[in-house]
């Protein structure tokens, strides 16, 4: 895998974004795509099938990858009844069709719920990560141990760019996620714990792992409530549960706010999704903690959307005042890609050189490209990093990108800070439901968003 190794070597340069020239990079990406396509087509059933259906026999140019990119849907295309009825061997059979590695060692006897099933996968070397969308159905994507190591390495080489914190376990680390569970957000935390966090100063929202079974139950109930199928008793029980969890979490936020205050003078690394960051800010205010005074080498990241929560219009400004003195970091990514795209001084997101960004038209079939200047459409990625599954992904994002040089002086491609959901632009149907409880479900586990998303 020489081309892949050469791509990964770029990450080790002081500034990965400027480490390759454009011609050389395109060749490397193409060669890595050829390597991975040949290797993974033989291993991933859905890739082989799609390649056969669409007549993609070899990768002669990067655009040849477009017919074999998959939407998020592919990773939740199993029948929900497999989970509801506890048909774990069938679910494993399905998982085998989207995975690059054999399910031969997966033992499902005695599995009681989906979390059990995920543990059995892990025991056999399949580190699935999952996200539970607004439809209540979770996706499952396979990773190998090699994938986990690789993304941990890449994440910590990019996070904080262009002034990444040192990878010497010297920084107090705050990550407003559960510390364990099959979610990208958790894997991101674990990467930072491995390379960045100071062992005696690592703080998470909770040590209670993300429970997919419970998340699914919450999502299903929200759906049932929305469709009117839930009984009044179900609704009452749900709302009582929401209140209990809110109280539990409040105690956690108070604990975190105190810890944050104690490390105010040190260079910390802080990451949370906006609703959680907001809850922490409220806890800090209740404790009477002042704004500002953070160490100048501290970095904080608020990510994701507001999950329908009614935050004040100026929540980002209020959070910025609280973190006064620290640098705000931003990135754009999705859970399916190995690495996020960090923001530069000019406010644009730089796609790391090992990722190939495609901008597709409304149909998702045609590539929009220009050597320089804005190109608008649906974002898709060829991601050669993964060995546990096929890394070609069509996102639900509508972006404006530029393949030319950036105003910051570095090469492209870059993505403008104007990302929207494609379905809002081109009217794709959505299974989205809205419920005041959704944020609680989010706190129990990462739901749909990526590691870092501005």
């Amino acid at each position, binding site marked *: 895998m020489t081309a892949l190794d050469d791509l990964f070597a770029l990450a080790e340069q002081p500034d990965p974004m400027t480490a390759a020239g454009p011609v050389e990079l395109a060749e490397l990406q193409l060669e890595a795509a050829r390597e991975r396509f040949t290797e993974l087509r033989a291993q991933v*059933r*859905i890739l082989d*099938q*799609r390649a056969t*259906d669409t007549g993609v026999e070899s990768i002669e140019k990067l655009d040849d990858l477009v017919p074999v990119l*998959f*939407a998020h*849907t*592919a990773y939740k*295309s*199993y*029948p*929900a*009844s497999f989970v509801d009825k506890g048909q774990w061997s*069938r679910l494993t*059979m*399905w998982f085998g*069709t*989207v995975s690059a590695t054999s399910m031969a060692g997966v033992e499902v006897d005695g599995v009681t719920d989906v979390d059990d099933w995920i543990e059995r996968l892990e025991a056999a070397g399949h580190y699935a990560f999952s996200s539970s969308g607004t439809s209540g*159905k979770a996706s499952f994507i396979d990773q190998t141990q090699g994938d986990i190591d690789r993304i941990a390495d890449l994440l910590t080489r990019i996070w904080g760019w262009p002034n990444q914190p040192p990878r010497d376990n010297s920084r107090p680390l705050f990550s407003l996620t559960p510390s364990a569970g099959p979610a990208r957000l958790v894997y991101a935390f674990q990467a930072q714990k491995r390379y960045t966090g100071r062992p005696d100063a690592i703080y998470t929202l909770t040590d209670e792992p993300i429970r997919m079974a419970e998340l699914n139950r919450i999502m299903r109930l929200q759906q049932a409530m929305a469709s009117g199928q839930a009984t009044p008793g179900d609704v009452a029980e749900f709302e009582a549960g929401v209140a209990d969890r809110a109280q539990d979490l409040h105690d956690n936020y108070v604990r975190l706010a105190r810890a944050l205050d104690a490390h105010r003078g040190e260079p910390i690394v802080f990451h949370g999704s906006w609703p959680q960051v907001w809850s922490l800010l409220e806890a800090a205010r209740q404790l009477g903690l002042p704004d500002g005074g953070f160490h100048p080498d501290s970095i904080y990241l608020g990510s994701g959307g507001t999950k329908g929560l009614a935050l004040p219009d100026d929540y980002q400004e209020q959070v910025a005042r609280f973190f006064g003195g620290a640098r705000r970091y931003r990135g754009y990514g999705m859970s399916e890609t190995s690495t996020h795209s960090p923001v530069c001084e000019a406010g644009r997101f730089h796609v790391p050189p090992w990722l190939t960004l495609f901008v597709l038209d409304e149909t*998702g079939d045609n590539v929009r490209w220009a050597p320089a200047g804005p190109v608008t459409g649906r974002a898709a990625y060829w991601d050669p990093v993964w060995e546990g599954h096929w890394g070609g992904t*069509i996102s639900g994002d509508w972006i404006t990108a530029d393949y030319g040089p950036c105003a910051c002086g570095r090469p492209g491609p870059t993505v403008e800070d104007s990302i929207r959901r494609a379905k809002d632009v*081109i*009217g*794709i149907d959505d299974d989205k439901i809205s419920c005041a409880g959704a944020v609680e479900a989010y706190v129990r586990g990462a739901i749909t968003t990526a590691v870092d998303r501005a």
Partner: protein
Amino acid sequence: MGTPSASVEIPFLVRGAVIEGRSLTRHADGPPGRLDLDVLVWPSDRPAPLFDVSTAEIIDPLVELGKWIRRDPDGIVATALERFITVCGASRPLEQRAYEALPSYFARDVLEFQLDEELGGGSALDGWRPVSAPGADQPSFVRAFPARMVHVLAGNAPGVAAISIARSALVKGASLFKLPSNDLFTAPALLRGISAVAPGHPLEQSFAAVYWRGGDASVESVLLRPQFFDKLIVWGGTAAVNGVSAYVGPGLELISFDPKTSISVIGRDAFADGADLAAIAAAAATDATIHNQDACTASRFQFVEGTVDEVDRFCELLTRELGVERTKAADRSQPVPDDLRDEIDGLRNLAPYYRVWGATDGTGMVVRSEEPVDFYPTGRVVNVVVVPEVKAALQHVNAATQTVGVYPERLREQLRDDLCSVGVQRVTALGSAGDTRVGLPHDGFYPLARMVRWGKDES
């Protein structure tokens, strides 16, 4: 098909006048809407234009309208059909046949049948009907009064425009049609027919048909008020229903032809000796492909009683039949949408639990399973569910289930109580799901009865 571009000229029809419009919605690259909203409403301080006209005098010009559509003396209908196909992307052979069926909505017997069945005859509208209430010495009187209506039309079948015109006219209503972007031309063309066959008739003054982008608050928030309209009639789509329902309140009533799903139930007789399984599969395909499966009556889930091997034989035949051109179907649809393709691909390698037939090219696919699939089959995709007995289908029926096509005939009577008790609105023979009869209940109610206001003089 999205929002019409600013360059598409749409012939709005407002109270008998043709206005070459674009959209009431301002486009970034086009001129703003130039139609005066004032002409789209009927004042509440005077009777509706048709109030004093007898139903007989309304039916006569409607019958003439039907003849006019068939004759099409000025080529207006042909032009509308052509633009429907070229601008809205409709399927030519399919819509040609759909347009040929438009006159049938204006047949005299069909119109009179609706009034008789839904309102007990035109007399309910034509005058005060005496009623003797128990315990009262003197008779009371009731009369149905016309309402002012906004119809948010669906564009998946041109019959929607025809039936809406007929219904509004029969109840003497005044109606504003909000045209759908996937059928911008049928309703205006039919309204021009009214002007052609009955110039100066109050019918002309009773209709307007315009386009604005659904959800455009600058239009909807202004128009959708009880001061201007009494009834809001919405066809189909969840987005359409949700989009306007915020405006519903006291004085503005929602009449919703809800988004619906239709299914088929096929008993084990289909596999008996002497049964013509190919013909049954053809009937099942006929129901699945109504308006290329865009219609609410189109069957998407088919519950088949039999062994897996038997059902697989049916699936093979069904797959072949899905690609056949029929009265209400072209020989293929648009290719299966990408997200659906992802879902189906996920099931392809799950034999023996799932099996998939057909191609994603729009000629038809069948997914056989033990449980209904999690996705909504569309784009000529049918989910055949193996059931041990037909009654097992009942647990998958709900308020969104519209039509159930049943085979064999004798099962209809056996199942109809159970089916309709749990939400089904219509039971019919397999192969007949597309043959709807106006004048019978529609989506669980009698539309004409909902489209009037009742007045009473009570003793």
